[in-house]
């Protein structure tokens, strides 16, 4: 993975986040949540600083980041597309919807389009099973989506 150099202001921000949790190693998950909220994702450099500040090994931080699906080491797209793959959505055709998004945007799940606009991810049940299958883009929720609707949905964001 390409190394990025963090601006000093961002490093300071991270140090501050760690400090707000008393630099406690047991607060690691809370620190990561805050860090991801701030940076959008958790690149290696961010993890290194967190490890240093909390006085734990980088391997430990990396182990936790990769264990939990909520944490991401790659930046998400400007419009993050999430397809619900909960059982209720699955039996109502979510897989076909996912295939269509992947095909139209030519990116696999977990990655971002080259222009940085869209990223695709699967999530497990947003609890809107009455609207299955469900797709969320950012905060917006689309219900009862079929493969045929995909092109129109993408178009909304391509302007």
């Amino acid at each position, binding site marked *: 993975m390409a190394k990025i150099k963090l601006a000093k202001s961002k490093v300071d921000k991270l140090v501050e986040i760690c400090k707000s949790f008393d630099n406690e*190693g047991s607060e690691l998950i*809370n620190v990561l949540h805050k860090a991801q909220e701030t940076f959008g994702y958790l690149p290696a450099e961010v993890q290194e600083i967190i490890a240093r500040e909390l006085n734990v090994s980088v391997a430990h931080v990396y182990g936790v980041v990769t264990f939990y699906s*909520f944490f991401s080491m790659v930046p998400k797209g400007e419009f993050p597309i999430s397809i619900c793959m909960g059982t209720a959505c699955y039996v109502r055709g979510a897989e076909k919807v996912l295939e269509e998004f992947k095909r139209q945007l030519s990116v696999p799940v977990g990655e971002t389009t080259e222009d940085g606009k869209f990223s695709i991810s699967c999530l497990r049940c947003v*609890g*809107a099973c009455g609207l299955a299958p469900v797709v969320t883009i950012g905060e917006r*929720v689309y219900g009862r989506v079929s*493969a045929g609707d995909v092109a129109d949905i993408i178009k909304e964001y391509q302007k």
Partner: protein
Amino acid sequence: MEKYKMHILICGGTGCRASASEAIQNNLQDAIKAKGLEDEVQVVMTGCFGFCEKGPIVKILPDNTFYVEVKPEDAEELIEEHIIKGRKVMRLLYVDPENKETISDSKHMGFYKKQIRIALRNCGFINPENVDEYIARDGYAALGKCLAEMTPQTVIDEIKESGLRGRGGGGFPTGLKWEFAAKNEADQKYVVCNADEGDPGAFMDRSILEGDPHSVLEAMAICGYTMGADKGVIYIRAEYPLAITRLKVAIKQAREYGLLGNDILGSGFNFDVEMRYGAGAFVCGEETALIHSMEGLRGEPTVKPPFPAESGYNGKPTNVNNVETFANIPVIINKGASWFNKIGSEKSKGTKVFALAGKINNVGLIEVPMGTTLREVIYEIGGGIKDGKKFKAVQTGGPSGGCLTEKHLDTPIDFDNLIAAGSMMGSGGMIVMDEDDCMVSMAKFYLEFTVEESCGKCTPCRVGNKRLHELLDKITLGNGTREDLDLLRNLSTVIKDTSLCGLGQTSPNPVLSTLENFYDEYISHVEDHKCAAGQCKALMQYVIDPELCVGCTLCSRNCPVDCIAGERKEAHVIDASKCIKCGACMEKCKFNAISIQ
């Protein structure tokens, strides 16, 4: 609430909010203001009503009118007609699909008739962000009763006598669990609420937290009183932003009222609650894994004993219960164990909340007495199968459960009967499947989930499930053999017997139960290379019936890979070599000319 003459309740659950219930609220408020009725009519955003299929729901009190599928633009008419002129807006009322009668009061609807709401008692009735409304419905009365009139042991005895069993999946008697934690002496103990609802298709815990957060806080304080703990922690999924917000509001209000904090209600008992966030790991629903995650570690389970009641969070005695379990506690204390244990079946007392979803007419959240049959749930409450299709199976217990069939429809649902039938209660997901669902694909779907969510600590679960998934994949691609079916069964048994925690011990259940109940379907995949449900792409082909095709060109225009050829007003043909089997053509065809072979 008494100051107003009328109350308009709007569902603020995640499903209804996704269908613009906030806009409805705003429009209603604007319309009320325009008519100068602010002092007489109050608009309240409540928790989930449960009837998600017909959302967004708007209910008007005191006359209990239940409006369904309301849109923001209906707001003005509702105020003008119902509130001012006292006339119901007929087109927004629920119509019984059987006799086509219009029903305005929810208690007469098939969906609600058989339900008894204990855990969901306040969802859809109160504003979850207002502690006064919770108190008005006997909220915190149970905590007061415990602190003033009961000793910790009498509270535990009451819960034991009620027969309440853990609603998160395990079904362990709650009173007994509390007693273990109470007996272990320590300088610090913890009460933990497991709100890491990871079972896809189950959303009851979230609905309770969104609709009635105080019921959980009250129960946690009661639990703390029985075991001598002054700290409570709610471990909640970061994916539930609304539930997190409502909990934060509730904790703040409870502290302001002296219902959390030091010297609660002047009793000398101290108890406070904080929150920890999950980060998306299904295995964290297992209590030892959950505790490790709370400590900032990877959420990997450890061998029990020691049980959390001896050595849990930070090595201290810890009691972990699930949200729905806690939500039952205040009612048991208020109404008594003997009231509660009259509801339900012999060994499973009380009610259970189920998230009814899939190919069913009435998707939603329901709460029924234990012992209700699957038939009652699916046909009377659920309104039967969607689009008049044939019922095939119902999956209970999520990725740890199994598929039940026609022959199980009259089985009373409780912890023990579901296990005897090869499935389990789990957290209460109930997914209904029809004739178009392939059971081999279904098993594969669940295994995909397990493979992704296995924490990797023990070999049977990490490697075994992966091999199961590969075998299932091979079968859905048409390359399976009869020997593979035996292998599936053997491997499943080994994984069940040798895995460390509940995840691995139950993950092969979807495979075993489909093998047991749908063996013919597996056979037709491996021997005839056919998928009768038409779901296994490798085994199917889309074809256009030239008799039915009118040449409207809709399919070819919608084909993403341009593999449909044909002139206008002439029968079209699909080029099977280019077809990616996305199904878009079949979905668009208005003449039912496209079928799967």
